[in-house]
């Protein structure tokens, strides 16, 4: 075992290690928020997917889209599932998880079209909230797989992870982080 001081020192030395995004052909270490601000190209999510994720994020937890929710999900889906940090790992869904997200986003838009006559990203805040309430309860007429309640839970968890699951997120809430080994990125800075 090592002393706690050693870990803190090691963490500080390795503190520049952020998520790796490819920007202008170069691998760059960025937080998801900065990846969004820099308009880093997506590798797995299509443009329409991103718009839906952003709209879901803003409805589930305002601020999560600017915190880089779509880039975070895209980054995690684009890597080795063994290294995934997505909550979905815990929820009985077999890796890889890309089809789960794509199917869920398709089902969200289909339900939105059926309920409100428009894609989810074009819904008013009230319309979006109404659909999410139905999804949370698992009662969306005509909903296709995955289960709406599970998809709601996963996206909500991702949004919470990006906003509050980081050292910066802890600080927003006044929670002391007290790390033994600092995570390599203060996401949300």
């Amino acid at each position, binding site marked *: *075992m090592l002393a706690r001081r050693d870990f803190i020192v090691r963490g500080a030395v390795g503190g520049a290690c952020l998520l790796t995004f490819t920007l202008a052909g170069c691998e760059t270490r960025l937080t998801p928020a900065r990846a969004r601000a820099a308009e880093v190209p997506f590798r797995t999510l299509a443009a329409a997917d991103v718009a839906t994720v952003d709209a879901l994020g803003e409805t589930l*937890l305002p601020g999560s889209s600017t915190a880089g929710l779509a880039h975070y999900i895209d980054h995690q889906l684009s890597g080795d599932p063994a290294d995934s940090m997505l909550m979905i790992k815990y929820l009985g869904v077999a890796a890889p998880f890309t089809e789960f997200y794509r199917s869920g986003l398709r089902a969200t838009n289909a339900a939105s079209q059926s309920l409100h006559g428009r894609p989810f990203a074009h819904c008013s805040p009230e319309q979006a909230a109404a659909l999410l309430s139905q999804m949370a309860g698992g009662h969306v007429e005509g909903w296709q797989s995955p289960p709406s309640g599970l998809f*709601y839970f996963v996206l909500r968890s991702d949004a919470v*992870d990006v906003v509050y*699951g980081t050292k910066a997120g802890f600080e927003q809430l006044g929670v002391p982080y007290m790390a033994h080994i*600092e995570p390599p990125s203060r996401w949300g800075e």
Partner: protein
Amino acid sequence: MQAPSSLPRDPVDVIVVGSGAAGSNMAARLAEGGKRVLILEAGPARTPAHLISSTLYARRVKWTGPPVLDEGKNPVGFVFNAAFGTGGAAMHHYAVWPRLHAEDFDMRSRHDRGLDWPLKYSDLAPYYDQVQQEAGIRGDATREIWRPPGAPYPMPPVPVFPQGTAIARGFAKLGKTVAPLPLAVTTTHYHGRAQCLWDGWCDSGCPIGALANPLTIHLPRAAAAGAQLVNDAAITKVLTSDDGTRAVGVEVALKDGTRQTILAKVVVLAAFTVENPRLLLASATGRHPQGLGNSGGFLGRYIMTHAAGLVYGLFAEETRPYMGAFGGQLVNQDSYPKTTHRGSGAFGSYQWMIAQAVKPNDLLGIATTRPDIFGAALHDFMKRATRGFAGMTAVCEDLPVSDNRVTLSSQQDVHGVPIARVTHDTHAESVSLWKASLSEGKEVMRAAGADEVWTGPPGSMHIMGGTVMGTSSTNSVTNSYGQLHDIPNLVVAGPGLFPTSGGVNPTFTVHALAARSAERLLATWPQVVG
């Protein structure tokens, strides 16, 4: 840790499959007993430096091995409860180490429910005492009025933080008792280990040696005694003699796709509750057509998992819910007698783990306790809950059901071994027990003065059974030492041996059983190896 290329070419005394709580304990004791021990770990090498303090990074150390089909009305939650790599699931366990009670060992005889163990509490008590001294448990044996006989804890209990004080008030108002939670976490510098800072990062794995995980306790001992640990070495088959009476070694699949046979006098399977029966089923031969150790048809059966009775409260006072250990601060076992809640159709035991440290996010985090809230209201909830949140969890006994079992799927892993399907439907009396725990928990929170009280779904904690011990192959897979009735030099270790789950966390009992098994193997070595 060594690379697969370091696999020995010549026979060893003991192969231990898996490096978690049971495997590391057995390996240390057998190596210290003079045996040449090889630990084969299917997962990657993990060191304390991998245990990053982050709920997000913690997900990387959970199970990423062969897929497990997690099915039934009440799935066991395999990925969250398991891990892949050095230290196994114990690497990120919460170190809540209560003992089973005497009535857990003969439940069939006393209550006509479940199964009897082939040993009694008094048989295991000396090993609980032995392990608690070497691992270090903090607590107060006197205040644990429910505790079965045993040596006092070697360390004083943890101080109670405001979350614990708030909930304890509710128990006291209802005339119930709380005591310090027995935790295998250091409150003082113990055997050279650092003391806990009560930072609540246990689920991410404790890298400073305060929590008694295998990286801190038994793997260093095993290495010091000469045991060799090889990572990324997946067992594809346990090999047996032509007459089927002896294990002779294992077949290992390496990362480069090659396979190697390693011979041993004794094979210990300590690959956790699902992988152990999977390997035994997948190692079927002409002599053992239904799998090794399955002559009685019990292999894979009686899978159990504790239903979590999750109860939360929001207080006006500041509770600092992020302080403490992930497992909690206090314990109550008033509901341990099996028939406590018979009036509500329940059977079994439960204990409360009180005032568990929480983080804002993650499966057990603050946000997840109210999944119905979203939008601006979620931000508001997070701010209020960070200030005044409190929670406690009932560890609810799961009655053993024969049809709750591990079987082989038609799907195969990358090495061509069938993957496991785990089916689990909670017994009706266990469901009633879980409901009874929620009723009691809400009453406690209200008595404590919580402004809001709510409950969570029946999450799955711990996985047990599947290779249960008993008196013969007519009722079980192994004897009380984990030796297969059919193949005595093939030994199972871990919570898979449990014939009943009890209402407490299993890791302390896993260690006590492993210590007893290792002692037996060393004492009877000539007979065991033939």
